[in-house]
């Protein structure tokens, strides 16, 4: 509302964030778990006096650096870029609440980068003790950077006492922070195993390959054992509506949540009966299959985590379309076209109400809906008459709990309904619109959070 809206054709802005975020999470959790894997495996090689294993860790380091320092770092910046473009208001809010948190994360990230380089270039320069110390420094910095960013992420769904106190501590130590931290740490450990299976499968020395494959499988299984514990704990902290959405209230979210559980189980079962029990039959193709399944698990889990936050982007504070809960009544009174800055029409023109309708769509709906592509409005309203659309707009948050209420004047609502019905022009035009009192729409609908 406060910023111009960037309309991404077909896929919508939300998916732009989603695609970057899922790929980033798949790599950045490896940056943490792999950071634990490297020094522990190096130490194992020293303790077992196994130079072949040490050589493997060296080659794994190169893979690790190339993936995490380049793709991990750039895609991490990428999420920041994307959320700033798709939802600047929410991004600005998060930065105001958490700027020192982000600054602290940046310090850990600096140390992480430096440690990764020194660890990589230090294989031939540092004595083993110093080299291992650098490895531990890397892991410490990487894990703390996860701890910091995790609190910011969970804040968006469970802002907890921040809504009343507006303090950093209340925002950061929100109800979802600890369980999510445990889950993400377990995911990091599991992903360390997933990636190690990939590099281990390419080892030529047969004996070493079997040893490392079985060892990597243990990492994955340990992570897979802890993830459900953290996940259940995390679910218990979710707002009621969010929890209900995963359990049937929103079919797509329920399906994705079920898929997350199913894919996770599949990865764990494949790993147990494959690389763990029978490492000699395991190969690179199988490792890729597990990696793809793990990526799919990450994708559906993160999608569901984002989806349950609807109708908010910051729970009970800001709706997905960036209208703050506190601003609802004001916007209702003065109208959305007068409240929003970046529109072409600032009032409904009785001669051309559809133009205002399109502007209102961009401001209120387009952050989740595209016109023809992802979550298409054209399909959503297909077959609906204008009166039906208008009725839905009046009760959006009651009919669909995961949608924000429509806010605006009666004329604006009707203009939006007209624009929406025109998306499917094949429908016969409806008779004259029923007379309704014009002006501000009725006050808050039931079910809205109290401003």
């Amino acid at each position, binding site marked *: 509302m406060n910023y111009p809206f960037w309309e991404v054709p077909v896929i919508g802005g939300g998916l732009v964030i989603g695609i970057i975020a899922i790929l980033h999470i798949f790599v950045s959790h490896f940056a943490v778990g792999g950071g634990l894997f490297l020094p522990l495996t190096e130490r194992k090689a020293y303790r077992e006096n196994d130079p072949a294993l040490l050589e493997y860790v060296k080659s794994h380091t190169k893979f690790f650096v190339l993936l995490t320092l380049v793709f991990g770092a750039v895609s991490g*910046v990428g999420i920041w870029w994307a959320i700033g473009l798709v939802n600047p208001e929410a991004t600005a809010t998060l930065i105001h609440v958490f700027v020192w948190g982000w600054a602290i994360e940046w310090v850990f990230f*600096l140390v992480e980068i430096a440690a990764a380089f020194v660890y990589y270039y230090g294989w031939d320069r540092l004595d083993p003790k110093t080299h291992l110390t650098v490895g531990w420094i890397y892991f410490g910095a990487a894990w703390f950077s996860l701890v910091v960013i995790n609190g910011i992420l969970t804040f968006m769904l469970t802002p907890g006492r921040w809504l009343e106190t507006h303090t950093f501590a209340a925002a950061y130590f929100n109800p979802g922070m600890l369980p999510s931290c445990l889950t993400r740490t377990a995911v990091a450990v599991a992903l360390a195993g997933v990636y190690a299976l990939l590099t281990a499968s390419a080892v030529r020395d047969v004996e070493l390959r079997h040893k490392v494959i079985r060892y990597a499988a243990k990492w994955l299984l340990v992570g897979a054992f802890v993830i459900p514990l953290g996940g259940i704990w995390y679910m218990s902290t979710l707002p009621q509506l969010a929890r209900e959405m995963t359990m049937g209230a929103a079919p797509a979210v329920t399906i994705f949540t079920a898929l997350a559980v199913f894919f996770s189980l599949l990865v764990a079962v494949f790993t147990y009966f494959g690389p763990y029990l029978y490492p000699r039959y395991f190969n690179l193709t199988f490792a890729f299959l597990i990696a793809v399944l793990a990526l799919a698990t990450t994708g559906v889990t993160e999608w569901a985590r984002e989806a349950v936050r609807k109708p908010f982007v910051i729970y009970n504070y800001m709706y997905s379309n960036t209208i703050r809960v506190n601003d609802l009544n004001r916007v209702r009174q003065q109208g959305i076209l007068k409240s929003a800055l970046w529109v072409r029409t600032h009032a409904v023109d009785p001669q051309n109400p559809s133009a205002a309708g399109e502007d209102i769509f961009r401001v209120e709906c387009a952050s989740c809906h595209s016109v023809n592509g992802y979550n298409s409005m054209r399909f959503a309203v297909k077959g609906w008459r204008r009166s039906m659309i208008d009725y839905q707009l009046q009760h959006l948050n009651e009919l669909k709990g995961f949608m924000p209420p429509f806010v605006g004047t009666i004329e604006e609502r009707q203009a939006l309904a007209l624009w929406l019905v025109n998306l499917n022009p094949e429908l016969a035009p409806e008779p004259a619109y029923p007379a309704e009192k014009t002006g501000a729409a009725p006050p808050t609908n039931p079910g809205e959070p109290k401003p």
Partner: protein
Amino acid sequence: MNPLIPAPVPIPLPAPVWLLQSLSVFTFILHLLLMNCLVGGVVLLCLSAYRGRHDPQHRELVRRIAPVMPSVVSFTITFGVAPLLFLQLVYGQFFYTSSVLMAWGWLSVLCFLLIGYYGIYWFSFHQDELGSRQFWVILVTAAMFLAVMVLFSRNLSFMLHPADFYPRFLARGAGGFLAPPNPATWARLMHVFVSALGVAGLGLALLAGAWRRESADLAAWARRYGLRWFRTWIGVELLVGIWLLWRLPVEIRAQFLGADRLSTGILLLAVVMVVLAMWAAPKSLTVGAVALAGTLSLMAVIRQLVRVAYLRPYFDPHALPVQGQWVVFALFAILLVAGLATMGWMLYQLFRRAPAAGPSAP
């Protein structure tokens, strides 16, 4: 038409504006030093890769510079995060708007960065195998980083022109590729680019010092070559600087030409420092490097003053409410010192030893 400027976030700033702006400038200085080395470095590599086809000295130069570049890229990106964070906190309503209005271009920074970053790794890991393709790989890589530089320069320049926001929105909507130019666009871009060439020259001269033991001739030649780059391009930069000053709005230009003592003094000091750097570098690289770092630091301050001046008619960040989060800030400050010390310790451990045959069991 009145410019459309989004309202600031209705949450108090977590620290006074002076502190946020100081941190923004301080962290930007670190980014600026590395960014200059990166942009100038890839151009220098490009040229040497081309000349290296027939000139063994340039070939050797490429062989020695390339392995340094991945870490330069990495730290350039990382040091760039903090100033952008503080910029978004104080001037977010301008920055986000300009970014959204050139959203495709701004998002494409990520692609260019990714290709450039992997390109530099590919180049540095596979120089020998690349053979004659070396030049093309580094040319594409350099083009990626130059594209990033152009997009950054255009966005950060566009955000200073809020009067252009709404006309741009009406004409093209959100999500364009490049922001519309303004009178200072090209001068600003050239100012960044030419400075990078000069700084990379001095960087090369400094780096050559580490090669003296292995190859005294190469080190001496590289030092001379680097210094020549430095003095030539910084000389050009002085002219570009005058051009940029004359492309600024008249009231901002006046601020640096006597109307404001502090701004004028800082600009004068920057000019004195850069002349000192050019004069001293051939005699003492250390003095030259310190003077150049001082110049860049002052230029970062000038950039901040220019930004404040551009946006003064529209917005005064000092009017925003402040509610200091001092405990978290103190934690950040302590961690920053501890983090820098840890980085220093690790780098010391790495560089105090010559490469060994390989690690052995403890």
